[in-house]
């Protein structure tokens, strides 16, 4: 199908000052006064719901009490001892569905203690002022562990292993370490090159070597790693974005949102990025919200998220959905992609979607009614596909296209552990990946200590 409309995709839609303002910090950091006032609101609950809601079980009441008592660095140590990426998690955690959702102040007043911002205050305080890394390594054990992937799971695992005295080598496929912290998270959530600063902070522990541009299956094999190292942790995340399964999936203007965000994160000058005047995003998770908002921030005029089910089923939290809407993004639920419209040159000019509803068995069915939306770009944000060939060949059991692991992160291979997005467990959140990495490190340490 072709249409007559003229595609409008352009770079440099805004003045340079606008780019700086648009991609500045989402929340300004708390001032010391704000932090003290907010910390005073914490009730220091017993068996605190916030702490139980945190995937890394940070002792939230304790660190907030430490802030209130004028010991921000002590607060940071309380945080980092449970979650070495406490700084990044403070920026990217969907706190509104984790710690802050269950805060008793939410129950009492509808206004939770701003735990995420307080966590950022404490971790920033320490990271900006510390002279020595807050953790010491145990005596070296002589054991060597290979970590595949320098994302949150891999880095957290490596840090914990290094603390135990093991030596760690990290193999990272990309030019820079950091994983989704560096390539995936929305730019306005982690400005000021925070991902790399946090990475440097983590590496201060010592005993960790990072080999960038070294991909599993391309540059190293699991067999070789298995021979050389005492244990292996796999934390390589997921592969490319899933296709829509429509003709034109690879057409000009039909774009992998994860890849686009990676380019955006790496772009020194945001004005160099081409963005459509009219953008449609397909998906309902954080990636969909991130690409939609950032499209607006790059100057797209009309941005619509289309999601196949109802808004309540979206993986993006209510807060994230509201953030999208305040940034001028339209969210349209119950719409399933049906047809990609292309111009004479084959490039995307629009998308036709079919209204959907839950059938008698709960499965989604089309109503037959359709909606055509003109679009200069269609972003695909409907989940990432795992790269699993090399793994199943190495005898690692999979489950629903991801690696099957035990609670402590063990795979079916006795020397291999795994965590983060590549495993079949929990939500795909930074904080969950950190938890996986740290748990696996405990388990590896126990195994190596036998």
């Amino acid at each position: 199908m072709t249409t007559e409309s003229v595609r409008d995709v352009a770079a440099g839609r805004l003045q340079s000052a606008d780019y700086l303002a648009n991609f500045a910090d989402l929340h300004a950091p708390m001032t010391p006064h704000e932090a003290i006032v907010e910390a005073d609101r914490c009730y220091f609950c017993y068996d605190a719901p916030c702490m139980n809601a945190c995937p890394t079980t940070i002792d939230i009441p304790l660190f907030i009490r430490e802030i209130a008592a004028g010991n921000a660095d002590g607060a940071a140590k309380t945080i980092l001892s449970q979650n070495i990426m406490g700084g990044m998690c403070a920026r990217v955690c969907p706190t509104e569905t984790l710690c802050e959702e269950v805060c008793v102040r939410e129950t009492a007043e509808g206004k939770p203690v701003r735990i995420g911002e307080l966590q950022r205050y404490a971790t920033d305080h320490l990271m900006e002022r510390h002279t020595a890394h807050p953790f010491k390594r145990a005596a070296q054990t002589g054991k060597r562990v290979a970590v595949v992937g320098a994302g949150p799971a891999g880095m957290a695992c490596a840090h914990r292993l290094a603390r135990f005295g093991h030596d760690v080598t990290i193999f990272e496929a990309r030019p820079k370490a950091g994983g989704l912290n560096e390539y995936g998270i929305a730019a306005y959530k982690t400005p000021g090159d925070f991902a790399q600063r946090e990475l440097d902070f983590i590496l201060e522990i010592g005993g960790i070597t990072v080999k960038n541009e070294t991909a599993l299956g391309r540059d190293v094999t699991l067999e070789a790693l298995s021979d050389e190292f005492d244990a292996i942790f796999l934390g390589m995340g997921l592969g490319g974005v899933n296709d829509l399964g429509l003709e034109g999936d690879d057409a000009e203007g039909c774009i992998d949102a994860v890849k686009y965000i990676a380019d955006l994160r790496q772009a020194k000058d945001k004005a160099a990025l081409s963005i459509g005047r009219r953008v449609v995003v397909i998906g309902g998770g954080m990636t969909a919200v991130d690409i939609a908002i950032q499209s607006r921030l790059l100057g797209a005029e009309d941005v619509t998220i289309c999601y196949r089910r109802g808004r309540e089923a979206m993986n993006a939290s209510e807060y994230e959905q509201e953030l999208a809407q305040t940034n001028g993004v339209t969210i349209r639920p119950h719409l399933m992609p049906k047809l990609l419209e292309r111009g004479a040159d084959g490039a995307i000019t629009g998308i036709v979607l079919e209204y959907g509803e839950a059938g008698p068995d709960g499965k989604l069915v089309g109503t037959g009614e359709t909606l055509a939306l003109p679009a200069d770009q269609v972003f695909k944000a409907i989940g990432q596909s795992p790269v699993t060939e090399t793994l199943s060949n190495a005898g690692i059991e999979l489950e629903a296209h991801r690696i099957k692991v035990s609670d402590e992160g063990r795979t079916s291979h006795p020397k291999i552990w795994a965590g983060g997005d590549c495993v079949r467990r929990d939500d795909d959140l930074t904080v969950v990946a950190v938890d996986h990495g740290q748990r696996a490190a405990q388990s590896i340490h126990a195994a190596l200590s036998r």
Partner: protein
Amino acid sequence: MGMVDLSSDFCGIKSPNPFWLASAPPTDKAYNVERAFEAGWGGVVWKTLGSEGPPVVNVNGPRYGAIHGADRRLLGLNNIELITDRDLETNLREIAEVKKRWPDRAIVVSIMVPCEEEAWKAILPRVEETGADGIELNFGCPHGMSERGMGSAVGQVPEYIEMVTRWCKTYSSQPVIVKLTPNITDIRKPARAAKAGGADAVSLINTINSITSVNLDFFAPEPTIDGKGSHGGYCGPAVKPIALSMVSEIARDPDTRGLPISGIGGVTTWRDAAEFIALGCGSVQVCTAAMTYGFKIVQEMTAGLAEWMETKGYETLDNFMGLAVPNVTDWQYLNLNYVTKAHIDQDLCIKCGRCHIACEDTSHQAITSMVDGVRHFEVMNEECVGCNLCVEVCPVTDCITMEEMVEGTDPRTGKPIRHDYANWTTHPNNPAAMEAAE
């Protein structure tokens, strides 16, 4: 609110409401006092005057220290300021001028001169000439002046109190209020001495010896003056319980019962004032609340007191003055047959768990934390001694209440609820009671 009359007649000193500013920095000059009257204060006690001659000097470093609650709410204030450091003549002239301009307001003049008859004989006529309504003898200031044999140094010796009070009654025709220091072991002794000396009233409490904090860089008390600190006088909301207790002791002492009392100590809202009046005070004096928020707070105080009196049907202060005095008693007379149990309103509970951990760690293990795998806080009556700790640590007003058991059996003791009154004096576990029974 037409029904309610807030006016006060305190040992002959009349004011349109019972709220006076205490003798302190807010009442040191005509400028401040007139601002206070404009704001609605019923009276002031002018900041303490000293003898004729060169005035005292204050430190030029910090004079105040404080204790803060959440959000830096000021709970306790400490000061090391002395009596007025302005010339006596200036103060006397301003007092006369202000009294002339504000005839309906009470102006009481605080005085502190050496413990010699001549010194008092000299200053009293000068004060009387101003037209002020009365005098208050500062026997309470615990810092600086006490080192020179004045202030609390006099207030700690009942014989001196009686002697000086008698001089004042001899050389002045004005009402004499004796201001008492709390830095003693038994507040009834100085009160009795004041009465014996002919005092028309007492006022209390003056400030309490205090060091609010220690500077951990200089290792010196705050406020720190060039590396050193000295104890100051403590006041503000934190001292109100101490003041209420001392006021009640004087109000119920057979020797001083009926002696007018001006209540001082942490009065911050109308409710605090009502409590002091219920314990027998005829007026209240305020300082810290004004120093924290400014003079406007009196508007809340007068409106709140009038509103509450209207609700209760009290037309004048006399209607409820002293009503709480008969209910202040000794522990030994408390009814041991009165049984209460804490009750948690599950609809109001926000599940912070503080009641549980307070009870579990520090008291009687009487509150659940988990029921059927769910966080749930509920009182176990078979363990609850009715201590009230959970009520006090709960962040939600009225979520936990103490409920009286009116019938049945106390599941903790297994004893039936009794409706008669029994106290420690007759309890079998009391050795003295057993002796009496033998």
